[in-house]
């Protein structure tokens, strides 16, 4: 287990969003949270990245309580890309990616040639090298997302947390990001924990899916195991046809209507 949670209870103020979550993530696994809006996906990711302190329970990173590690130590192992990251308007891609080296530098240290090597590598891996001079604010959605992933890579992490990395992208750029994630996982052995809205993409690019409803895990397992019409009706309140993709064997689902159980939310 590279990352995990035990009896994790998460809340904002007094309202409990996630009760008693247990989670085990194996090294080099690609795990995706799926679930409706407000089901606590981002909240869990924030807690796994030690940004949100748990009301109860523990998050483990390599077997250690994440709150007992220094935030810098954590940053050297784990990188997170929030749902809507922000950057100053005049920041260039190169400067942004360079910020990713922060966890490896003492406050008085300047970037060494090793840091530039890593930055160079991160730009190359994400195909953002030719964007290095561009301002982050002027990039297209897909380019921007790759730039942010490059920054996360510059941290040289073992674990990458991605919160809806493909939202707002057109389908081609969505797949581009998913292919990039797969490559990082396969070639570098990066463990990836992410949130995706597109269930078919989640099924295609993840080893394991975790379906959430009201902060609780309803089902988890390989896409083949858990993606069923019943689950979709239960979690997302949609009627859907679930078939097997003849090429990959992955399940694909085709929602065609709102499930009975949702009649109350329509009125």
């Amino acid at each position: 287990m590279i990352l995990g949670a035990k009896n994790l209870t998460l809340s904002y103020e007094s309202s409990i969003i996630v009760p008693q979550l247990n989670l085990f993530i194996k090294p080099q696994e690609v795990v995706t949270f799926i679930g409706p809006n407000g089901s606590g996906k981002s909240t869990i990711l924030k807690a796994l990245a030690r940004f949100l302190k748990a009301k109860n329970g523990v998050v483990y990173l390599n077997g250690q309580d994440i709150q007992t590690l220094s935030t810098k130590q954590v940053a050297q192992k784990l990188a997170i890309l929030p749902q809507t990251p922000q950057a100053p308007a005049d920041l260039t891609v190169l400067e942004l990616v360079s910020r990713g080296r922060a966890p490896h530098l003492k406050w008085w240290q300047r970037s060494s040639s090793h840091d530039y090597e890593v930055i160079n590598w991160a730009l190359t891996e994400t195909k953002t090298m030719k964007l290095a001079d561009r301002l982050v604010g002027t990039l297209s959605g897909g380019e921007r997302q790759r730039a942010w992933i490059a920054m996360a890579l510059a941290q040289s992490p073992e674990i990458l947390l991605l919160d809806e990395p493909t939202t707002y992208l057109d389908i081609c750029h969505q797949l581009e990001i998913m292919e990039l994630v797969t490559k990082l996982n396969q070639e570098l052995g990066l463990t990836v924990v992410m949130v995706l809205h597109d269930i078919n993409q989640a099924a295609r690019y993840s080893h394991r899916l975790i379906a959430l409803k009201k902060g609780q895990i309803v089902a988890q397992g390989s896409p083949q195991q858990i993606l069923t019409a019943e689950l979709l009706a239960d979690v997302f309140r949609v009627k859907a046809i679930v078939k097997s993709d003849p090429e990959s064997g992955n399940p694909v689902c085709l929602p065609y209507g709102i499930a009975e159980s949702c009649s109350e939310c329509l009125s």
Partner: protein
Amino acid sequence: MSKPEVAIASGSIKHRRQWLVLSLTLILAVTAVTASIAIGPIKMSFKEVWQILLDKSVEQDVYYQIVWNIRLPRTLVGMLVGTGLALSGAILQGVMRNPLADPHIIGVSAGAGFAAVAALTIIPNFPSSYVPLAAFIGALTSAAIVYGLAWKAGVSPMRLILAGVAVSSLMSAGTSGLLVVFSENVQAVMGWLVGGLAGRSWFHWHQLWPYIAVAGTISLFTGRQINILLLGDEMATGLGMRVERIRVLLIALASILAAAAVSVAGLIGFIGLIVPHIIRLLSGSDYRFLLPASALAGGSLLVLADIGARMVMDPIELPVGVLTAAFGAPFFLYLLRRGQKH
């Protein structure tokens, strides 16, 4: 492998510009100081100024007396005050991720004003040489109250701004109340409230420089931290920064800088707001350059404004705060309109 090709290419354009702006602010600072010493009822050339500054053998000279006892201390106090305000503003704009933040927003000015006025009005025969101390304590207390009110499992920039506005209004109301109740003392207080450098001497310099030197030097090393903070709390945490701790440190630095400045020179507006903006327009938002360039430019602009304040209505001196407001307010509006386009 060393720096990537692109790093060198992009580094050179932006970097050259940053260094250029930094050099220009340095030149501006030297020019402003020299001009401020040279200009007055008795005029001197820049060359004479530096001769007098560097050559101690002419001590009997009346020029020497004017430079060393009157104009130099006033100019240096102006430099420190402007530096303190501009650095404070730059830091707060970074911490709050809000370009409209300035030293007044954390209640420093209102607190200083209230404490100074309270001391001068309530306490009979309050020695005026202790006004800066009272103001300094008032400013820091007020900043601490603002921080305390904004605290709720951490301090969010939004809550900080709201608490700052609330506390400032309360303090200003208190100040107005005191001025009405003790209206016979208004005259003594007014000069301080409006803000100015008239009559500032080595005495003020000695009170001021330790704070600006220490807090200013530390803040020059916070550029990289602020750069990270600009990416948002979540990202900054993700990059291994202890966000809350750094934020307290930065707010403390900004409070000390502003408190020291207003305690000696009264309420001078717009320097803390405008100067970081000008530098940002010229050389971008990289705080490693923004901080030192703002420090130099802030001091320079205040000293230049002070020259103006002495000259515009000669022989009457205007408070320099009036001049910074007269130029700052239109520039501020320009920024607002410019901002709307984006």
